């Protein structure tokens, strides 16, 4: 077990390294840098001026060197301008000077860079937005998982029954409704003047300070709906498989009541597979969060990614991407380790 976890962590670190490098490469492509130079300098910059700006700021260094600096394993790039003032990523006026500033200044030292859109430290923006999204995701999971498990177990405990067909059709329909469809329909029906219901608000901006029934219901329902179907179908498949297992048949033949079979014998084994699926929902949840936050104008992590991407905010996009990738990888790790841990057949051998 220890060896297994160690190996998984090793693979995860390697994956994280490769992925962050790819993200770094893609955000630091020359056209992005050119755009950055022009937004920082002026839009009529000549090609030579762009190159000289980028060289001065250290953007023209070879990619592995730039990546090393960003990661914090290579000394940071500093520039001295004509007046002899030295500037660099970690040199802040009033805090330290070129001499006292740390030489290494990267993600490993907790320096995420500077957001050119929000004019603030990228690390603190990411932390704040992540917190906002955490609440939204938590609420969505709190709705989605119990609903999906109940639907899946009810459908799977008697495969092929009418109950199963009705609930399965519902799951199929829900997994055919992406967030931008359900969100649009929810807003139109429950929040627009066209239908006149106006039960909820079509914007969740106010939910950032304070959740109310009116402003958070629609975003949460939008995120949860798409995920429910998938998790429910997985639970159903797992439950249906367990119900045909030999030990369930034995229990039936012994005369255990159907309810006891479901609750005491089948459920524990049937919930192992959905656990993995739920953990693997995180990458999809991120997509859902980005769409929902954009649609409902909830300024969380997803909204931040959209802003960073559309405004060529390299440091923020990079930081956000790394956080997203790490969240996904950690959930995958938990899912793998959890599966082994929950499954006695693997755990004991």
């Amino acid at each position: 077990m220890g060896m297994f976890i160690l190996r998984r962590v090793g693979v995860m670190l390697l994956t994280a390294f490769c992925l962050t490098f790819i993200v770094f490469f893609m955000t630091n492509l020359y056209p992005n840098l050119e755009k950055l130079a022009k937004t920082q300098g002026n839009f009529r910059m000549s090609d030579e001026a762009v190159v000289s700006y980028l060289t001065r700021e250290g953007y023209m260094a070879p990619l592995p060197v730039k990546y090393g600096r960003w990661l914090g394993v290579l000394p940071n790039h500093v520039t001295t301008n004509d007046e002899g003032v030295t500037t660099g990523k970690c040199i802040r006026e009033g805090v330290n000077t070129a001499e006292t500033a740390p030489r290494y200044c990267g993600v490993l030292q907790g320096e995420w860079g500077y957001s050119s859109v929000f004019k603030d430290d990228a690390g603190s923006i990411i932390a704040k937005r992540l917190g906002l999204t955490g609440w939204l995701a938590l609420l969505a999971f709190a709705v989605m998982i119990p609903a999906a498990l109940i639907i899946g177990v009810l459908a799977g405990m008697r495969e092929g029954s009418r109950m199963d067909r009705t609930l399965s059709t519902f799951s199929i329909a829900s997994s055919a409704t992406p967030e931008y469809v359900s969100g649009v329909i929810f807003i139109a029906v429950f929040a627009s003047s066209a239908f006149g219901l106006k039960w909820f608000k079509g914007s969740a901006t106010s939910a950032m300070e304070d959740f109310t029934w009116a402003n958070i219901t629609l975003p949460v329902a939008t995120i949860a709906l798409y995920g429910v179907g998938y998790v429910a179908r997985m639970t159903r498949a797992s439950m249906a498989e367990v119900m045909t297992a030999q030990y369930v048949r034995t229990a039936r033949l012994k005369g255990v009541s159907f309810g006891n079979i479901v609750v005491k014998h089948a459920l524990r084994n049937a919930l192992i597979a959905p656990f993995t699926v739920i953990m693997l929902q995180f990458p999809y949840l991120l997509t859902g969060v980005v769409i929902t936050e954009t649609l409902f104008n909830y300024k969380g992590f997803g909204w931040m990614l959209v802003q960073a991407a559309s405004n060529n905010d390299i440091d923020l996009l990079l930081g956000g991407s790394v956080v997203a990738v790490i969240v996904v990888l950690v959930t995958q790790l938990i899912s793998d380790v959890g599966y082994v841990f929950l499954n006695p057949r693997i755990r004991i051998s």
Partner: protein
Amino acid sequence: MEPLTWTGALGTLLNPLFALAVLGLILTVAGYLLVSAYENVQAAFSTTTSGAVTMSAPHSESLARFILPTAVATLGLGMIYLLAGIVTPYGTAGILGELGVRFLPVWIALAVTFFLSITYKRKLGLYGKLFDSPIGMFGFAIVMFWVFTAIFVAMDLIITHDPLGQVSGMKNKLPGTPLSGAEDGDYTHYLLGGDNLARDVFSRMVKGSQVVLVIAPAATLFAFMVGITLGLPAGYFGGKLDTIISFMANLVLAFPVILLFFLLVTPEIRAAGIAIPGTEYIWRVPTILASILFLFPLVFLVVLFDSRYFTQPPKRNLYVGLTILIGGYIYLGMAWDADPFGLISIDGGVLIVFVSVVFVNSPTVFRIVRGLVLDIKTRDYVAAGQTRGEGPWYIMLWEILPNARGPLIVDFCLRIGYTIILLGTLGFFGLGLSSESPDWGTTINAGRRLLSIYPHPAIVPAIALMSLVLGLNLLADGLREESLKD
């Protein structure tokens, strides 16, 4: 011209009946689910052992008997709404009736398809068996509805107005508004209203089905070619090859899809590339990806024919030669935009969308194929093939692959649906396709800004997209059920 109402004169008669049927349906289904769930839970906590196996559920069963009749009544009345317009004069049956008239060619084509398929269903293999499953049939009907719509729109049949044409005075107009300044020969109404640029929502929606139904299946097919070409050897040979390809697939899978789109489908990425020294040519990122990904179908087909016919060189040379000639021609045009005759080329925006969708989908297909191969290669017939001295590629492509077709066909249907959702996501963020494009994602994006005042421009494509994906999912479910029955 008078504005059209949703159901027209017909509605005064039908609406109460329809409302009654829908209410009945909702009540019976909800009631059935609740009662049945209650009875199941009650059974779960009761300690009696009697009747444990048969589990009679009297109340829910008596409710369940009403589900089918109410569903049939609802569907039947719904059909009357849609089809009445064909026989009544223009406008009597309202917007729904006139929509039904516009879709007349589709109804006819659907009726013919179903008639022929059901008549000959015993001779049609898995496709025929689909018509034994009501769910599968329903899904198939929805999918074919959109397929026929896309085909007939290409023949200029269903569409009422120019999907890009703006008519002054029609901005954000509600469904059924008469066309302002209509001349002879113009269609007199905007059936589903106008969008914020005064274009006809209905025409854009049906035109959009074309974009979606061309890109999504093609991208899925390419993803399957990539996944199969890599998954077969990874599963069959295993070892280092498998480790390397699996690691790369996991890399792509660990990448949040939305992030990949934001990084890949931007104008900056499309402009970036590797300058080839000594020439003016810049190898752009979309072209790099396309030239790698589009190579897989070519490799797949060449290996497919070569492994089968290498003992008959004339035949082999013919097939492989034809593949390289035709495939290479299409490959040059699609990936490199270098078709010598200038016939095949893909717009830059469409290409990057296509490529990124293929890129996102292929690792999943790879994992499915690899898993299937790992299972199938332990079978006796594979061992028999190996003993006979068959080559590894022959065994993979002509022994293992045909036996893995069931799950692959089911996943293909599901994956088209997922690809449609991905395309919609791209459109929703305004990535890739031009903002004028009538595809559903882009239209939803354009309509969502005024959602709380004028919801119709966004709702129409949203429902279209949902129905098509739902149809594909139901079709996949029906196929799975029927293929498991063997």
